[in-house]
C-alpha cells in the first residue's frame, strides 16, 4: 500500500477500481453504436428500392473481398452487449440490495446477453 492511497492517518481507500473503466467503456460503446446507427440509416436511405436484397446487403457488403458489413455489425453488437451489461448491472446495483439476489440477477443478465451475442452472430455469419 502506497502512501498515496491513504487519506489522513487512519482511513485507507480501497476499491475494485472498475468504476472508471466501466464509465469509459459505456461511453466508447455508445459512440460506436451511435455512429453505426447513422451508417445504417443513411446506408438504408441511399440503398435505392426497399427490398430484401438491398436490405440484406447493408449487413453483408464486402470491400475488396473483406466482409466489412458483417464485421461492422458484429463490432456494433458486441458494443451493445457490453454497454447493456454495464447499464443493467447498474440498475440491479441501484435497486437490489440483497447480495444473493443481486448475484443471481447479474448472472442471468450475463447469460441473457451472451445468448443474444451468439444468436446474432449465428444469424449474421450464416448469411
Amino acid at each position: 500500500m502506497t502512501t498515496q492511497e491513504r487519506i489522513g492517518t487512519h482511513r485507507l481507500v480501497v476499491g475494485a477500481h472498475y468504476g472508471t473503466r466501466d464509465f469509459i467503456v459505456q461511453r466508447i460503446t455508445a459512440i460506436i453504436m451511435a455512429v453505426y446507427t447513422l451508417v445504417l440509416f443513411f446506408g438504408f436511405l441511399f440503398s435505392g428500392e426497399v427490398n430484401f436484397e438491398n436490405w440484406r446487403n447493408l449487413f453483408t457488403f464486402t470491400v475488396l473481398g473483406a466482409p466489412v458489413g458483417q464485421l461492422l455489425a458484429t463490432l456494433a453488437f458486441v458494443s451493445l452487449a457490453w454497454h447493456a451489461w454495464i447499464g443493467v448491472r447498474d440498475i440491479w446495483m441501484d435497486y437490489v440490495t440483497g447480495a444473493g439476489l443481486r448475484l443471481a440477477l447479474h448472472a442471468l443478465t450475463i447469460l441473457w446477453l451472451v445468448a443474444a451475442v451468439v444468436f446474432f452472430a449465428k444469424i449474421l455469419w450464416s448469411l
Partner: protein
Amino acid sequence: MSDSVSKPRPQFRNLSIARLMGYRLPLAGKASIMHRVSGALLFLCLPLVILPLFAASVTSPESYAGLREWASNPVCKLVVLVLIWGYLHHFCAGIRYLVLDLHIGMDKVSAQKSAGVVFGVSLALTVVFGLKLFGAW
C-alpha cells in the same frame, strides 16, 4: 483497511413506491428515468423480439416476405413503434449525456432545456417513424 469493519452507516429510506407518482421530478429527471426505462425495455426485448425480427428480415426472401406479412398487423406495428421510441429516446438522451460529460450545458437552466430537446426530438422522430410505419406515405 483499518476501518473497513466500522459501525453500520445510517440509511434513510424515505422514498415510497405508493407515492411514486406524487414526486415532482424536474424535466432532466424525467429524461433520466426514461433513459433507464427505455434501456431496460430494449435489453429485455433484444433476444425476444428484436433478434427474431432481424433474423426474419435478412435470412431469406421468404422470411423477409413473412416479416412484411407479420408487420401488416396493427398490433405488431404498435410493438415495433414502442421499440422505435425506446431506441430513439435512449439515443437522444445518450447524446445529451455525452455532451454533459464534456462539461457543456451543465448549469441548471441549460440542463432543463436540453432535457426538453431530448423529449422533443425523440418524440417527433417517433411520430415520423410511426406515420411511415402506419403508411401515411
